[in-house]
């Protein structure tokens, strides 16, 4: 057979595409359950990590059911939509693209040693692709108890470092409301002159060198997401400013 003829070349390419596509589709669909289970348990693990409950992926489900007392899906006005399950129905990646009035904002309430914590899922954009995470507020709804971040495709060694403990721990103790009671979030700052993050009232944490855009993404994501929970917080707490 003439291997250089157009017909052969086209035929070969067509056959190759069909074979490759079916092999990959078969693999993807047969591993799908395992992969989704990993993602689900990791979500639980991340939510637990913000309130200081460390667990491996296999133990996550049990502890999640133990500590998380409430899973709310909030409307834009702060009321609770009881028809939507916060954990399994809401996919922030899809939700965030909707109009704020159509969005449902998931909120997890945890109870650890008689203290309530409010865990808010985050999602935003880094340099290359999506970044997301969870931030837990203490019962004063102002002080950060813990934060967890993750990313899809940030640069390893630079932007991807936001998933490291030393970065996430910088957020602990920072406050998201300023003294006048307005929401300021936490800025990932290159100029805060506080590399050890000892000042917990400056609403800033030290940035990662070489990861400016990822860091800005983290700041924006925290402020943007938290702003949607203000109506709910205002409803449940009379005045946040007095908590300072």
């Amino acid at each position, binding site marked *: 057979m003439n*291997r250089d003829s157009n017909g052969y*070349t086209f035929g*070969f*390419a067509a056959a190759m595409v069909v074979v490759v596509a079916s092999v990959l589709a078969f693999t*993807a669909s047969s*591993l799908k359950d395992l992969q989704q289970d990993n993602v689900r348990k990791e979500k639980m693990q991340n939510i637990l990590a913000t309130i200081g409950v460390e667990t491996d992926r296999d133990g996550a489900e049990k502890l999640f059911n133990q500590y998380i007392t409430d899973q709310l899906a909030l409307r834009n006005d702060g009321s609770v939509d009881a028809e939507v399950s916060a954990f399994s129905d809401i996919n922030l990646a899809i939700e965030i693209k909707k109009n704020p009035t159509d969005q449902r904002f998931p909120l997890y309430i945890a109870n650890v040693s008689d203290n309530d914590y409010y865990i808010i899922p985050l999602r935003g954009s880094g340099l290359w692709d999506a970044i997301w995470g969870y931030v837990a507020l203490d019962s004063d709804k102002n002080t950060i108890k813990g934060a967890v971040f993750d990313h899809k495709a940030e640069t390893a060694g630079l932007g991807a470092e936001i998933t490291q403990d030393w970065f996430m721990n910088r957020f602990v103790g920072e406050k998201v409301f300023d003294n006048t009671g307005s929401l300021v979030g936490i800025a990932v700052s290159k100029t805060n002159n506080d590399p050890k993050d000892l000042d917990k009232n400056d609403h800033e944490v030290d940035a990662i060198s070489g990861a400016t855009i990822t860091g800005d993404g983290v700041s924006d994501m925290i402020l943007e997401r938290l702003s949607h929970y203000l109506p709910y917080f205002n409803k449940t707490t009379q005045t946040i400013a007095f908590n300072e």
Partner: protein
Amino acid sequence: MSAKKSKKPIFLFLAKEREPLFSKKNRALLKDPLDDNNPITVQVLGICSALAITVQLKPAVVMTLSVIAVMAASNVIVSLLRNLIPNRIRIIVQLVVVASMVILVDQVLRAYAYDVSKQLSIFVGLIITNCIVMGRLEAFALGNGVWRSFLDGVGNALGYGMMLILVAFFRELFGSGKLYGFQVIPEALYEMGYVNNGFMLLSPMALITVGLIIWFQRARNRKLIEKN
């Protein structure tokens, strides 16, 4: 008399067919890329990933295993198809083979080694663009038998992985005082004032480490020294 005559050619024919699996020539396929023809230190290929994922040993080891799997499999597949692949689209075919192997590895890692797959993130995908893989397909697998191509793929991936692990060893040891995630530098040393070298965690130190390895290798291996 005739029996004696006919025996010899048959014997020769058999001998030629039954080249031992690990003959000297085949062993060279495995051994050469480890030292004399190392993809990283001699050919200086695949440097990008060598800099990026050598901060810790664990991702380096997983990357090595992934590259071994991808290179061995794609070398074998291209070698099997070498008489079928149309010459004009051979690069595309190679690319498709490598890309599908990489996606397979990525899917398997996501199902069975989720944490590691997250750590490697885009670098698993970047195996596709790793010059070593395409280079071996084009230069070797297209013109050689299946077994030899398999050995060549494994050998080159090992040569690549060996350097990755070596660099990661030094970077993790001096950068974070750990090896494979376990603390090896004793607490007492830190109390005496020892500090981890944060510079080791950054990419430039990987390049310098690779440079030092090349220096050491050339000082030891006379074959690598240029004539003029």
